[in-house]
């Protein structure tokens, strides 16, 4: 803190009772310096360092993005970086200083993911609708090329005259021909031979391999008509060394937007479904990606194959999530109360042991449990039950029980931890007062401890419900949804929950349907969100207790 002359003057003015004038520029600067210094120089340095790191990363990102011509993203990154600097270098904007990091993280990890998933849900993105129309046409045309049966391999040289490429072809009988795009093969004069193969023609420049590589696009497009008869096809060279005679079974008419199969005469038209379709409804794949509006949502809700399984899978999903939350919570709570008793010895050791299931990755433990529950070889049947053959994972009812048991084992330590913390925050004097009033232990628990506990724990129970509702890992690792319901038209099993069923529907075999899967994900998100919102509103009432 420095006493400047300005301040002395100010004080003198105030003492003499004249109103202060507007501060001069120097005064403002001085005030600014004082203001900064009051936070301590260390804080300022940390701030500058942190912003420096952020800016450095943003600059690096911008550099990469501009090189890759990703203009939109570059714009967003630049805007965010500028905004962050503006917020933290300004002396006001206090709320923004607190909110900015959180909002950025929220935007990247929640809003963006959700928005992108919804976007995909409105497209037909999936197997066969993977890229742009242009790419689909290219792929169809190159797949439609058939090599003329028993045609020989023609050694070729790629030659250039005035920027136009031609192929110099050596026929099987040693004859040399030349031709180019739209210029059928004709005998060439003045061929330069090397080892019985023509390597060039007078008046043309032969391309070296490097030149061929650098003009790849022209060469892959180059089709030299074999003769005046189009049915004889054209010569193409895939590697610039040899050419082969091809005919094409498809013809693309860009103006009309149609594909014609030259063998059958069937015309395939772009009817707006993202693939060329014949009148009989046959599609040529690959197609391309288009937006399809609410089609995926309609399909998700009205697919007749799903209507049967969907009902019991949904029921089981709710049952699984609710029972998992309830069982883990009550077991965790029971143990927490037991170990909260001062008269018990070695509580720390017990607590440590109880946390262990929580410390093992759930992927691993689910797989270990699956091994232990094997009917003929598993540890539980062989060792614990002395050779019994309990169908832990292969009977529909037992498999559900097993899933719940394993999830209980995985989930109770978390609840135990949470409840231990919450119990210790309940003041002892309340309990003492209740005892003095003659309350029994059960009454104390039910009327005093549990309500107070729920104030803290209720939001966590809701989160746990949402987590278990989409607990893909345990189902996938333990039973993979099995045992399979062989009566269902889709490969769904008796322990499948919604998310694993969606996974199977969308990703079975070779037909991926990202659009449908995204639509389902959004629907599941809406269900979980609605339940969570209602539950949170209800738990607000609990807070009145305090």
């Amino acid at each position: 803190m420095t006493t400047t002359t300005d301040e002395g003057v100010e004080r003198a003015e105030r003492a003499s009772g004249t109103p202060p004038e507007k501060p001069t520029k120097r005064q403002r600067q001085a005030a600014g310096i004082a203001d900064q210094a009051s936070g301590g120089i260390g804080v300022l340095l940390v701030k500058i360092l942190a912003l420096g790191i952020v800016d450095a990363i943003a600059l690096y990102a911008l550099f990469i993005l501009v090189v890759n011509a990703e203009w939109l993203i570059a714009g967003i990154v630049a805007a965010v970086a500028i905004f962050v600097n503006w917020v933290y270098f300004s002396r006001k904007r206090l709320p923004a200083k607190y909110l900015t990091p959180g909002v950025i993280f929220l935007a990247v990890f929640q809003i963006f993911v959700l928005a992108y998933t919804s976007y995909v849900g409105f497209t037909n993105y999936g197997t066969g609708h993977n890229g742009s129309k242009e790419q689909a046409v290219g792929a169809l045309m190159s797949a439609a090329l058939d090599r003329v049966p028993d045609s020989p391999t023609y050694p070729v040289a790629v030659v250039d005259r005035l920027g136009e490429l031609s192929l110099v072809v050596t026929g099987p009988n040693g004859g040399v021909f030349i031709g180019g795009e739209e210029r059928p093969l004709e005998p060439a004069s003045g061929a330069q031979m090397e080892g019985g193969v023509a390597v060039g023609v007078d008046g043309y420049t032969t391309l070296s391999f490097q030149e061929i590589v650098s003009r790849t696009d022209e060469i892959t497009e180059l089709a030299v008509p074999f003769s005046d008869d189009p049915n004889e096809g054209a010569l193409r060279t895939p590697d610039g060394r040899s050419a082969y005679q091809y005919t094409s079974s498809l013809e693309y008419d860009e103006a009309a937007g149609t594909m014609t199969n030259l063998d059958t005469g069937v015309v395939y038209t772009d009817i707006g479904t993202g693939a060329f379709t014949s009148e009989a409804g046959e599609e040529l794949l690959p197609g391309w990606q288009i937006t399809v509006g609410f089609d995926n949502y309609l399909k998700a809700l009205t697919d007749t194959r799903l209507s049967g399984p969907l009902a019991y899978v949904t029921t089981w999903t709710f049952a699984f999530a609710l029972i998992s939350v309830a069982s883990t919570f009550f077991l965790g709570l029971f143990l927490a109360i037991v170990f909260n008793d001062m008269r018990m010895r070695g509580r720390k050791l017990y607590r440590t042991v109880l946390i262990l299931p929580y410390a093992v990755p759930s992927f691993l433990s689910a797989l270990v449990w699956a091994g232990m529950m094997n009917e003929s070889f598993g540890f539980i049947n062989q060792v614990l039950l002395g050779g019994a053959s309990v169908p832990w994972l292969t009977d529909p009812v037992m498999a559900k029980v097993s899933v719940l048991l394993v999830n209980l084992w995985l989930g109770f330590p978390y609840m135990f931890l949470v409840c231990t913390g919450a119990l210790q925050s309940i003041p002892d004097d309340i309990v003492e007062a209740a005892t003095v009033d003659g309350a029994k232990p059960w009454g104390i628990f039910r009327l005093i401890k549990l309500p107070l506990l729920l104030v803290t724990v209720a939001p966590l129970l809701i989160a746990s419900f949402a987590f278990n509702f989409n607990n893909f890992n345990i189902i996938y690792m333990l039973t993979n949804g099995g045992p399979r319901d062989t009566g269902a038209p889709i490969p769904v099993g008796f322990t499948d929950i919604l998310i694993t069923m969606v996974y199977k529907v969308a990703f079975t075999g070779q037909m991926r349907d990202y659009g449908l899967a995204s639509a389902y994900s959004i629907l599941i998100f809406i269900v979980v969100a609605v339940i969570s919102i209602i539950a949170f509103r209800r738990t607000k009432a609990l807070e009145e207790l305090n």
Partner: protein
Amino acid sequence: MKVNKKGLLAGGAIAIGATLVLAGCAGNDTETEESAAAEGGSLTVWVDSERVDALQGAADAYTEETGITVDLVGKDNSTIKDDFIQQVPTGEGPDITMGAHDWLGELSTNGVVAPLELGDSADGYLPVAINAATYDGTVYMLPYAVENIAVLRNADIVPEAVGSFDEMIAAGEEAGLDQPFVVEQGAEGNPYHLYPFQTAFGAPVFGSDENGYNADDLQLGNEGGQEFAAWLASEGKNGTGNFNTDIDGDIAKQSFLDGTAAFWLTGPWNVGSAIDAGVNVAIDPIPSPTSDAAQPFAGVKGFFLSSESENKVAATDFLVNYLGSEDVQLALFEAGNILPALTAAAESASSDAIIEGFATVGQDAVPMPAIPAMGSVWQYWGIAEASIINGEDPSATWTKLAEDVQSAIDG
């Protein structure tokens, strides 16, 4: 304005400064690519991480000869196919990727692979490899290895090769074993490993014509299929118990390594661990339950050319004229220990008794169908076989399987 996924992801990641993601998204070193293009182009090749070293020599030699740089990118085998399908349309994908022939249906339906003209070199490959590399009458893959299952025999327990399936079981029981033969199944079955027995009864999945497998000709439910189902039931839980869905891959392996099983139906990928465990391994043809040969599936590994490659000429040249050479095929064989697809290389590799054993079985092998309809078969096939093994009515279950598959194919 078309925003591609990678860009969006990159943007998101950048905004919070996830530098790692950034580096990944910047991908493919655009700068080096551009400078290399000036010198004569560069090729990006995705390779299963375990085989990068084997290919490095070939890549360097190619660069030396042509001046074209070859960037080998090691990829995780389990994600390489989906990454390829997703990245090719964005223009960020590789020029060439390593893969398996049964991806072909999916790759071609997505339009991400370009046809490959092998020209005269096609005659130099094993017929099964060329067959597998062909989809819809067009070749799309440069094959480099052929893989199939065979029976591993513990020669210390059963010194001589056996003839039929029943003789195999008898030989094992004579040696005092309860479960002489193991094959991996699991709760959802494993049709890949049971296929040789199914073909022995004359029930392939699809009939085939000159263009390969024909999706409209489902042979699964034919009379041979019914016979196979009846046989499977008799060898299952309520029969001899030679097939058991509780035996998964790990349990089968352990039984063979411990010597409680003398015969193990599995692939070359498990031979190493058996030899390391000190088992005296011999490779036998698969004992057939009928008078016909038991034909396993052949899986062919190879290289695909991206349809969006900007360097098709160089890529084709590198594949056909370079990776198709005997030296490179042998180098890949050394790295992966599976039979090369090039006949000449396969012959020199067959000096190894293990490889020769698998190759002998492979002569009867049939390529695994790559047509998209196969996806519909997989999802019902194993479950049906598992429930037959566990005592469901074989005839009804098999009939329902054929109906389910047919209706799934018809969509």
